[in-house]
């Protein structure tokens, strides 16, 4: 609903919009700036900006003191793995709910979403015991399963809203031409649904990357991803601000950059197709 406005009004709104955006972004910016300061400069009062001592040592030290590549690789494997596994289970489900809806489809979707309302803490002990018993505690496969199940309702819901926008006539035409159900899904539906699947994938990689309850509860060392890396870093040493900031930046930058590049697709996915 962009409308023409007087230059003065436009200047004011531009200034206001930029101020608001910078305030929202400021904590991230300040963290990144702090990560390049020396420890003394990071806690200087009044805060130093132009006259600060800039350095790259914090990154070097975090890198040498911790096994960052292992945490990073665990994060990648767990978030991508849980998303792909989730898609494999969710695509057929979302397909059938979108194109062969039954009387209870809506209730089923609501039920799936409501399973996410169960506070994770409430079932922490049983899940911990089950994972120990199954021998998947502190393994990547265990975390892939846990995060897949946690995000499955969201994956199904997002795919469902995308699939529903695909006209059913196309599928009928394919069926008339003798396409089997499998062919219909693989050759007709999937190509049309690629944008939807892509943004579902992106959002779920981000959700899984940032998940910080199961990833910390269900790991000790072997399978620990970046959320555990940062939790271990901030716990004992409150006063090493610059190093803490550097570690934080190393934990969030990969996903921040991915998110920035894909924000258009993300926004649509985030609204569950309910907002056009």
């Amino acid at each position: 609903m962009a409308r023409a406005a007087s230059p003065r009004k436009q200047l004011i709104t531009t200034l206001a919009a930029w101020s608001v955006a910078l305030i929202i972004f400021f904590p991230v910016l300040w963290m990144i700036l702090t990560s390049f300061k020396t420890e003394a400069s990071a806690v200087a009062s009044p805060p130093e900006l132009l006259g600060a001592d800039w350095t790259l040592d914090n990154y070097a030290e975090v890198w040498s003191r911790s096994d960052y590549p292992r945490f990073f690789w665990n994060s990648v494997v767990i978030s991508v793995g849980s998303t792909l596994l989730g898609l494999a289970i969710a695509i057929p489900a979302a397909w059938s709910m979108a194109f062969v809806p039954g009387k209870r489809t809506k209730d089923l979707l609501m039920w799936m979403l409501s399973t996410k309302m169960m506070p994770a803490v409430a079932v922490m002990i049983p899940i911990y015991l089950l994972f120990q018993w199954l021998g998947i505690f502190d393994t990547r496969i265990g975390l892939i399963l846990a995060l897949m199940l946690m995000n499955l309702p969201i994956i199904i819901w997002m795919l469902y809203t995308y699939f529903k926008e695909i006209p059913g006539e196309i599928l009928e035409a394919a069926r008339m031409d003798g396409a089997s159900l499998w062919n219909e899904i693989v050759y007709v539906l999937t190509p049309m649904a690629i944008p939807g699947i892509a943004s579902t994938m992106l959002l779920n990689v981000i959700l899984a990357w940032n998940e910080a309850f199961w990833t910390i509860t269900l790991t000790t060392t072997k399978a620990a991803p970046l959320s555990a890396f940062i939790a271990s870093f901030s716990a004992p040493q409150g006063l090493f601000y610059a190093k803490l900031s550097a570690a934080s930046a190393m934990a969030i930058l990969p996903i921040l950059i991915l998110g920035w590049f894909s924000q258009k697709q993300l926004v649509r996915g985030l609204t569950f197709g309910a907002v056009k």
Partner: protein
Amino acid sequence: MSTQSTRMAARFMVAPSVIVLFIWMIVPLAMTAYFSFRLYRLLSPDRTGWVGFNNYVWFFNSPDFWLALTNTLLLVGGVLVITVVLGILIALLLDQPVKGQGVLRILVIAPFFVMPPVAASIWENLFMHPQNGLFAAIARGFGAQPILFLENYPMPSVIGIVAWEWLPFATLIFVTALQSLSSEQLEAAEMDGASAFNRFRYIILPHLTRAITVVILIQTIFLLGIFGEIFTTTQGGPGSASTTLPYMIFKQAIVAKDIGRAAAGGIIAVILANIVAYFLMRGIGRHLDA
């Protein structure tokens, strides 16, 4: 287009999702229910047995429980109000013809990509810390005493941090919704002399109903389980001042090592979550295109 065989196939394809979700829900829930009626303390492993509703009674008699319940509702309600109100205002601003829309969006969406432990630790250390935080430095700059955010105002501080994390989500949904609002309608209203407030009240706000629904539904799902932010910043304190229901359960399980009581708390939390879910789905679920 649904013949008998397609319908069979459809059931067959939904089944895996329903089965795995059902198992993921029911097995831990059944175990929690079982533990909740047992004496199960990690510090005295020899003493076990059925204790009836004792664990539940302990929870309901604990003054912390009612505080935790209030705090949970305050957290969910507070964050919802802040993100919806500010989200709409910021969305209205971003929807104006301003320079650099693309960059603005990148700046505004950033907090959404920051994982909760990092968000909490940025705010706790770099901003709210009474000696080295930026807020303390600003206060000193004005010659004032630094505010002890996490000590004296633990709940508002936690609500502020969580609201910062969720504001981008709300804002972007509102921005998306505003883009589909026809400018003709607004211009016509303006011509007819409708004030800015009335244009907002009678045209923009009704248009946003569905977007508000989505924001409330999705955020509530995530907010009911908020844990990491409290764990990183206040640890539920001082005392129990910022203990929410999930955090109280966590304290019973990990600090007191009383699995029975923690399980009873878990069942109570699940029941409460279901009540909230029921009202949410009834009240606003119909706005969703399911």
